[in-house]
């Protein structure tokens, strides 16, 4: 106790205090710059910079290519200038011009390193190996100028970007947050230009499109300024006085609250109804796909996020859902074709998926962790191969699959365009989300949690492991079969190769990036992982590279996901929090205070 209350900086001003006052290692900054240079070289050499140069973000200043390029010195400038961590009891470090200098140095070194690929691309022809190390790339890197002037400009540009990155550390949070939020929104609007214009057109605001966007693509400078100022001022106002909507909602009395709940639900319904109308065909198509993956992610979230069963063969249930729908509804189904309607088939589809859940779950009941992952991975592949096999060819059509799956219809209304499909998908997503919520806060949910935390102890406390695990598999499988049924009737055909291992992996990435165990997190994850790549067609070629990078980044920086569940944060930062709690806890008794070391169990 005594050790923690003493502040070492205050006690010894002579040697420690000046060090905490703005010490930035400039040599280290240069090292950051070298790493940055390597990264920038990599990004250029894989073709991102020259490829993306065609896409204008802010006309005529900034293209996506240059954004990617200068983001590198910006990020490394930020890292180089980051002040050391302020521990409890220490004075916060004062930041100043020296930090900016460090960032500028890191940026400049990045620029200097970039000379190498430029000169190589100009003087040698290595394109048999490095396809993108071309004069075109050199031209982009030198900003279209002659070699000498261009390289100088590049270095200066990197230096400025590095200094700006460093500036993020220096500017006080009050101003930093609005500026960064504003810039982020400008770039986002520029990147998602298609979505933004479609949104404006859908809302009958065609006139505004011309104000914001240039005819050749990209934001007009005026549009960029409007977006920035708007976001900047909104952020500035609301960070001073954050709207405490939730607290105010909870403060309402019973009848008031009920009224507001109804209003909220009605408003959500109206917005949901309007989304596909406003967004039009292409965007709705993307949203449909996001919705189908979100359904799967919600199901997998129950299996992995709640019950802790690492299932890597989740695609099997998706496939069962899709194939059952195909067999039951299609007129072209090879063996039996009862030609049910979509809705009549759905209960059978869910039943079949639930059965397959039991089938997969039973043999792996006593397996945990890595072993479970490997076995389920195998099950996923077995499912695909079975659907592909000659053995089942008479029923499932082998590689030709099953075609002529009819669209679902509600009454006389047939659902066959992407905007129409959005409605059944979103309804099932809400159903799945409700099921997840209801089960999480129930006896079954607690049993799943207990199994995830400590399986043998859960069993010793009276939890029936068999039924709990099987019910997790069954519910997960049922939700995946929703997704499969919608997928089959939306595409109108099923083929075995739509159900490869990649689907399992993408769904897993969605829940890891979004935030395992949290429903909002899973939704955000689906939008980021499944929606963004469709909107940013330029990145398509680099999709898996970016997934990998994103996963590594998330594991290092935010392992609990974008919107984490409370429990998950606690779990991943347990040691830190445990220590803090140890320090701040009130003494249990007089004897506790006297105890110097925490007692350990004796054997």
């Amino acid at each position, binding site marked *: 106790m005594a050790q923690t209350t003493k502040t070492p900086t205050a006690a010894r001003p002579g040697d420690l205090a000046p060090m905490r006052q703005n010490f930035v290692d400039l040599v280290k900054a240069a090292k950051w710059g070298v790493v940055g240079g390597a990264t920038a070289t990599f990004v250029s050499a894989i073709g991102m910079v020259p490829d993306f140069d065609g896409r204008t973000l802010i006309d005529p200043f900034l293209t996506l290519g240059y954004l990617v390029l200068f983001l590198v010195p910006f990020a490394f400038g930020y890292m180089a200038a980051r002040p050391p961590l302020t521990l409890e009891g220490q004075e916060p470090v004062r930041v100043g011009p020296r930090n900016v200098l460090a960032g500028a140095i890191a940026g400049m070194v990045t620029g200097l390193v970039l000379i190498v690929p430029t000169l190589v691309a100009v003087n040698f022809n290595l394109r048999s190996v490095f396809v993108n190390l071309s004069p075109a790339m050199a031209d982009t890197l030198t900003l279209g100028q002659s070699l000498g002037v261009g390289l100088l400009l590049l270095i200066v540009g990197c230096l400025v970007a590095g200094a700006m990155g460093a500036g993020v550390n220096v500017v006080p949070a009050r101003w930093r947050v609005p500026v960064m939020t504003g810039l982020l929104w400008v770039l986002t609007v520029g990147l998602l230009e298609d979505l933004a214009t479609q949104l404006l057109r859908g809302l009958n605001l065609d006139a505004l499109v011309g104000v914001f966007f240039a005819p050749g693509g990209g934001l007009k400078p005026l549009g960029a300024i409007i977006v920035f100022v708007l976001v900047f001022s909104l952020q500035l106002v609301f960070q001073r006085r954050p709207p405490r909507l939730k607290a105010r909602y909870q403060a309402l009395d019973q009848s008031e609250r009920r009224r507001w709940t109804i209003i909220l639900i009605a408003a959500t319904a109206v917005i949901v109804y309007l989304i596909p109308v406003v967004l039009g065909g292409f965007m709705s198509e993307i949203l449909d796909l996001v919705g189908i993956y979100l359904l799967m992610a919600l199901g997998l979230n129950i299996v992995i996020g709640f019950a802790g069963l690492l299932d890597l063969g989740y695609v099997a249930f998706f496939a069962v859902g899709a194939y059952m729908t195909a067999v039951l509804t299609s007129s072209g189904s090879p063996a039996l074709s009862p030609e049910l309607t979509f809705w009549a088939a759905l209960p059978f589809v869910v039943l079949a998926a639930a059965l397959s859940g039991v089938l997969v779950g039973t043999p792996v009941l006593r397996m945990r962790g890595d072993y479970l992952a490997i076995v389920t991975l195998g099950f996923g592949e077995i499912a695909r191969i079975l659907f592909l096999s000659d053995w089942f060819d008479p029923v499932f059509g082998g590689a030709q699959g099953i075609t002529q799956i009819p669209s679902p219809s509600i009454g006389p209304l047939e659902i066959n365009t992407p905007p129409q499909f959005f409605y059944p998908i979103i309804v099932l997503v809400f159903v799945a989300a*409700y099921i997840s919520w209801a089960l999480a806060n129930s006896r079954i949910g607690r049993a799943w949690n207990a199994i995830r*935390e400590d399986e043998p102890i859960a069993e010793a406390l*009276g939890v029936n492991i068999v039924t709990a695990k099987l019910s997790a598999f069954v519910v997960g499988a049922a939700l995946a079969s929703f997704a499969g049924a919608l997928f089959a009737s939306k595409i109108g055909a099923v083929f075995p190769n739509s159900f490869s291992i990649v689907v399992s992996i993408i769904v897993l990435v969605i829940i890891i990036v979004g935030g395992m165990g949290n429903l909002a997190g899973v939704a955000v994850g689906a939008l980021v992982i499944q929606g963004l790549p469709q909107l940013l067609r330029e990145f398509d070629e680099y999709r898996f590279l970016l997934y990998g990078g994103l996963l590594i980044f998330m594991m290092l920086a935010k392992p609990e996901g974008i919107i984490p569940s409370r429990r998950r944060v606690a779990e991943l930062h347990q040691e830190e929090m*445990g220590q803090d709690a140890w320090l701040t806890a009130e003494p*249990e008794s007089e004897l506790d205070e006297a105890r110097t070391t925490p007692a350990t169990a004796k054997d």
Partner: protein
Amino acid sequence: MALLEINQLRKTFGGLTAIEGLDLHVDKGEIVSIIGPNGAGKTTLFNLISGLFPVDEGEMLFGGQSLNGLFPNQVTELGLARTFQNVRLFPNMTVRENVMVAQHCRTKSGIFRSILRTSKFRHEEAEIKARAEEVLGFFGSRLVGYRFDQPAFVLSYANRRRLEIARAMGTDPTMILLDEPTAGMNPSETTELTGLIGQLRDDHGITICMIEHDMQVVRGVSDRVICLDYGRKIAEGTYQEVATNEQVIEAYLGRKATDAAS
């Protein structure tokens, strides 16, 4: 009549005999302590009773029903709960949830009832919560109030031990096996817990069988003491009888050199 009755129990791990020909009984309303040096087979005995290990030979009866071959959750369902020597809570669940899980085998709501939120479900859920809070109240103010919603890992060591006992109580048992309940506690905490163990029997009518190394605790609450060594019962009786038993002293301290020579 004996609540727990064990006849000719035997368990080997490969070549190592952990339990050999053990007869043991615990009567209803008794507090029985099991003592013995390290490796005597005390925890193995508990693991056999609670179904964590399969039995090699012998029979275990609880309330007249055989425990042989039952899964741990079935043993708990019969009303025989236990705690663990190395505290094993669900660290990321709240204190209240830790005890609520224990009500699992006493409640019924399945998937459908949970999804539909029937009145039966809501009623049961409220009951589970109330029962959990009642059980936590057993330890006075230690685990109540703001502690309800704290994750278990922020608890101090002694409180973790208390929560383990609360969790066992949450299964509504007729008998609890306590595996070194006071290990690692300081003297005042030990005294407090000793009192609580007595209360468990006196106020809640729970029969107790515990493994304990602290002789103060053993002397304080035990009706009967059993001493194990190398998987066999070497002494049984009141604390005084066992404490003065020569074989027990020998098991703990070793034989005198002169005796060994003769």
